């Protein structure tokens, strides 16, 4: 057995064993070991991948198909991120999961995601894509049937779209492995034997398929429900790694058909048409999801929308289409996986210890759960893009890319999205951790140790890749075979600017130290009751009581009232309703219970057939 195979199937196998043994303690240990094996093997491959010939291959014959698995610069990167998040998820689940069912399907989706990243052909890609979808669907099904159905229907639409696209590509090129397809389509870009409209169709089908998984607008409607209706430790993986399969798919689109799409669809105002479409999908996703995230009253929903929005950044970076944009997007894949994973683990800890999910029930937990609070703080700063955290470096690269590619509106969309992101994480920070503590939260304890370990696993990359972003960009430069982002480990240099992370870190620490000194030796602090802080002396009426915990952004919601009337959720529900009504109408009309009508149908059909010449 090759090491790639061990890596791929270790989580699945561990999941099965944990499911069969089902003894508390043992199944957790097996699950964590199974989740850690891929990470260990991938780290061993680091020297091979960064060496002169970064390519590892293994092929497997299954039922007449030859599945090709490979490890090269790009999918090693994705696989490492997925396995890092996977390990953190396993530690988190050791504290929060209640049964072996969850272990089985969580680890199964882990194998699915790794398989998607490692596949070298479309057969394996599709098989593992479906394994991943199935396992995550089972996780949602456990908690909420309606949401799982929504997820299932959209996933099925995506899966069939992908299958048709693969079929068209196979019919045109006769190949299923990525290397041959890439070559054939590259040649075809010059010859043009694949027609323009067919190329556009394949593009549309792939966008649908990958867009569903990435949660791109307007296919994002499954994400908020599905992310919030599973074990929150699993959501770490769901939103941290599984949604990246969609981003990986978009990247694959570039690798496989970039030249062909460029040749077929041409340019639009100086941008490549196809990537411009992706950039706008990303931009709209960022804005819409961020606005919706700001208006949520439930922590899980808030971060679910936030996840959708942040994946929008990745699509946007990919859509800019320049080397810088793709570097930024790939960096954001890493930073989103670590900070959003961390967020979900924090949410898991909060739900585990308090059993509450809405902002109005929280408050003042920083004293009760100090370590979790520190982790939440790191996640908040990384997400909102405060240097020196990983989230800043990646967003900075995406901004640079959007600006230097002359896409002012797209850049504006991400600026708006960032502002909104800050608005919602600040609310999370304040409403949950500071302020007055509700009396029923007096005996809340610190999160359990495994959960804390999981948080540490994700918090460290946030800091390390924030202070030394060059670690990531140097690796990503290999992908392009040239220096896209220059500089040292601590300093990023792009054609339009320089970011010195170490300097910022030093300044930040210095600033905090000064602020700390002022706090300790400065003016005397006076404790004030919580009700004094934000009413400015005006009495608060009961019907317009906006506190950080209740309806805080209601003025925004009122300003947006016109736009909030339109919802894709409702649109899809209505569409489903219309289909149902139409089917009912057909049934009522034709299947009317009258024997004589059926005789008429028979006679008419026989007559038609006779006239047609069949009989």
């Amino acid at each position, binding site marked *: 057995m090759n090491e790639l195979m061990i890596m791929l199937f270790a989580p699945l196998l561990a999941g099965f064993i944990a499911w069969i043994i089902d003894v508390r303690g043992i199944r957790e240990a097996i699950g964590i070991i199974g989740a850690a094996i891929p990470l260990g093997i991938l780290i061993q491959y680091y020297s091979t991948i960064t060496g002169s010939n970064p390519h590892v291959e293994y092929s497997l014959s299954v039922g007449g198909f030859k599945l090709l698995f490979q490890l090269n610069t790009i999918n090693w990167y994705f696989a490492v991120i997925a396995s890092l998040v996977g390990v953190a998820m396993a530690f988190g689940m050791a504290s929060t999961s209640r049964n072996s069912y969850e272990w089985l399907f969580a680890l199964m989706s882990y194998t699915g995601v790794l398989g998607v990243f490692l596949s070298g052909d479309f057969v394996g890609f599709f098989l593992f894509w479906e394994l991943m979808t199935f396992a995550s669907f089972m996780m949602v099904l456990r908690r909420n049937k309606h949401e799982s159905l929504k997820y299932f229907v959209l996933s099925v639409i995506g899966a069939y779209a992908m299958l048709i696209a693969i079929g068209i590509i196979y019919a045109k090129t006769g190949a299923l492995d990525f290397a041959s397809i890439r070559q054939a389509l590259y040649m075809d870009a010059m010859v043009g034997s694949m027609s323009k409209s067919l190329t556009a169709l394949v593009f549309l089908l792939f966008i649908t398929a990958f867009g569903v998984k990435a949660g791109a607008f307007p296919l994002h409607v499954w994400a908020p429900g599905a992310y919030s209706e599973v074990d929150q430790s699993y959501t770490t993986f769901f939103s941290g790694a599984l949604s990246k399969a969609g981003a990986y798919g978009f990247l694959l689109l570039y690798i496989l058909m970039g030249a062909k799409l460029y040749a077929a669809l041409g340019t639009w105002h100086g941008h490549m048409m196809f990537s411009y479409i992706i950039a706008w999908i990303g931009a709209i996703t960022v804005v819409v999801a961020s606005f919706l995230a700001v208006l949520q009253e439930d922590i899980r929903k808030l971060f679910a929308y936030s996840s959708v929005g942040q994946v929008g950044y990745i699509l946007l970076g990919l859509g800019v289409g320049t080397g810088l944009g793709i570097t930024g997007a790939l960096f954001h894949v890493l930073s989103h996986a670590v900070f959003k994973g961390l967020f979900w683990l924090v949410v898991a800890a909060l739900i585990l210890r308090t059993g509450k999910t809405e902002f109005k029930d929280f408050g003042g937990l920083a004293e009760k759960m100090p370590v979790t609070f520190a982790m939440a703080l790191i996640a908040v700063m990384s997400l909102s893009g405060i240097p020196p955290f990983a989230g800043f470096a990646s967003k900075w690269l995406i901004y640079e890319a959007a600006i230097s590619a002359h896409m002012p509106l797209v850049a504006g969309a991400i600026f708006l999205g960032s502002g909104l992101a800050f608005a919602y994480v600040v609310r999370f920070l304040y409403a949950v951790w500071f302020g007055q503590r509700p009396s029923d939260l007096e005996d809340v304890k610190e999160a359990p140790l495994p959960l804390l370990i999981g948080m540490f696993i994700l918090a460290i990359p946030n800091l390390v890749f924030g202070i030394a972003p060059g670690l990531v960009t140097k690796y990503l430069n290999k992908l392009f075979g040239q220096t896209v982002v220059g500089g040292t480990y601590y300093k990023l240099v792009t054609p339009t600017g320089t970011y010195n992370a170490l300097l910022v870190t030093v300044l930040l620490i210095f600033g905090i130290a000064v602020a700390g000194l002022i706090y300790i030796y400065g003016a005397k602090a006076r404790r004030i009751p919580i009700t004094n802080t934000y009413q400015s002396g005006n009495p608060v009426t009961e019907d317009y009581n906006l506190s950080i915990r209740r309806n805080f952004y209601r003025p925004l919601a009122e300003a947006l009232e016109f736009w909030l009337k339109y919802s894709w959720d409702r649109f899809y529900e209505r569409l489903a309703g219309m289909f149902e009504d139409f089917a009912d109408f057909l049934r009522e009309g034709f299947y009317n*219970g*009258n024997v004589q009508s059926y005789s*008429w149908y028979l006679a008419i059909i026989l007559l038609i057939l006779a006239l047609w010449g069949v009989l």
Partner: protein
Amino acid sequence: MSLPHISAFYFASIALVLIGLYAVLVKKNILKMLIGLSIMETGVNLLLISIGYISGRSAPILSEGIGPNQAVDPIPQALVLTAIVIGVATTAMALSAVIVLYKRYGTLNVEEIRRLRG
């Protein structure tokens, strides 16, 4: 020609089928529909028989002076024998269903017996 032309058999049997079909499609009383079915069945049987008819030949019974070359086509006759039995069986079953329907609904009008719908 002393014998009627063969197309007269075709015409009459197809006419019987159409009359039966008319009864099934238009009559509201189930018994009348069943009568229509029986008429249709008769028409079909007649049609089958007349397809096998060869002008001037006798019944396909192997006997003195009548060989395979002097007989009409025996296959439709075998088919029709089967079809008659099946027809009688289905009619009998349909009649029993009609009895049950009448007991259950107190009417034989198909428009009123609409609770069969699913």
